[in-house]
């Protein structure tokens, strides 16, 4: 486990027989209490594909049932059930070949981190723009990873926008994603980029609508909606 933020944690899971995944896929996690009670949630895989191991990003939902356990009580060595990898729509492979626009809200960065990890190995130099919306600087997850990827590849640009509070001297955006912001950061539409948008439902829908308004056709916008604070289920 690794704390990513006061309210979010990465869990590294070792899974017998795990063969890797496609960037963007998720797993269904099921927990069983001692008295038999069960709860299930979906979490996106945030790591690059590899055999036997995967990483999940869990954002703690204050009144949640599963995320407080996974971000609080769970410790190294604990076991739970997993089904996956799942998903064939919100996935990216280098063979798509087109420039990439990755838009994340909050913990929606998780599947996009997997895409970026694969891209770093198999598609360096592919024009890619990341636009990451978070409430405060503490809510920007995977900061170091994003910085490492950006530094290693000039074809990758990362823009941040904070929607609730920003520190003095902040040079990024300070509002919800809108069409004007997309016109400034998004890639040339003549290159037919594909957009992946992931985060809370309202953010995803606003961003997708804004993308359409700046000229992205619906077929090249892929969306994945999380619950209000990042749990998908």
């Amino acid at each position, binding site marked *: 486990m690794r704390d990513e933020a006061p309210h979010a944690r990465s869990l590294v899971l070792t899974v017998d027989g795990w063969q890797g995944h496609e960037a963007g896929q998720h797993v269904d996690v*099921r*927990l*069983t*209490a*001692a*008295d*038999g*009670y*069960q*709860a*299930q949630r979906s979490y996106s895989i945030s790591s690059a594909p590899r055999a036997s191991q995967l990483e999940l990003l869990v954002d703690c939902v204050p009144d949640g*049932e*599963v995320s407080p*356990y996974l971000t609080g*009580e*769970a*410790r190294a060595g*604990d*076991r*739970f*059930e997993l089904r996956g990898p799942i998903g064939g729509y919100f996935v990216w492979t280098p063979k798509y070949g087109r420039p990439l626009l990755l838009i994340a809200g909050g913990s929606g960065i998780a599947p996009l981190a997997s895409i970026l990890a694969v891209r770093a190995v198999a598609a360096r130099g592919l024009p890619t723009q990341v636009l990451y919306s978070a409430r405060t600087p503490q809510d920007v997850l995977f900061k170091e990873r994003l910085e490492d990827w950006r530094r290693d590849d000039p074809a990758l640009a990362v823009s941040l926008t904070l929607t609730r509070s920003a520190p003095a001297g902040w040079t990024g955006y300070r509002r919800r994603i809108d069409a004007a912001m997309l016109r400034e950061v998004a890639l040339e539409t003549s290159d037919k980029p594909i957009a992946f948008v992931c985060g809370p439902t309202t953010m995803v829908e606003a961003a997708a609508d804004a993308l359409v308004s700046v000229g992205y056709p619906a077929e090249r916008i892929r969306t994945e909606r999380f619950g209000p604070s990042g749990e998908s289920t």
Partner: protein
Amino acid sequence: MGIDETSPVSRGFVGRRRSPAQAERVPPGQYVTSDFPVLSAGPTPHTPLEQWSFALQHGTERIAEWSWPQFQGLKQTRVTADIHCVTKWSKLDTHWEGVTIDTLLEAAGLAAAPTSYVMAYSDGGYTTNLPMADLLKGRALVATKFDDTPLAPAHGGPARLVVPHLYFWKSAKWVRGLSFITQDKPGFWESLGYHMRGDPWKEQRYAGD
């Protein structure tokens, strides 16, 4: 979710706040909670009270219909009951207020129900089937208040069916009427494999139980 009975226990996982089962009040397989989880089969409808009505139907015949003011003018009954959701949580001592099905039949001038089964139907298209016997003798009401407060839309307001002795999916949110049917037929969840009657004490969760 295709539950398999041999899942390993996740150390330290407890889940939603639950009190230890009080055996005589809690049906098999249930866990008591003080929360009130919201489950919906679709988006919350928002019917304005001026457009709301509750009806008793038999085929194409509308036997009776009440507007909101008329409904409020019927005899109101208060009920305290335990409720049990098929997703395994139970909530004890819930307080409801509304109009019993007995009162509705009487107000409609019916000495007895014309059929043995009903299909309750709601705004948004939800339906659920019930034996008439499970609705009579004070066992069910159309509730407009929870805990002395008008029922919130997310919890089924302005009115929902409340049938506490059956699993709570039978307590149709946003209910708009009862349709008398001669033969039992599956409603929204029943047609997807949930039990036709749903008695929690017999653990009738799914078809074939």
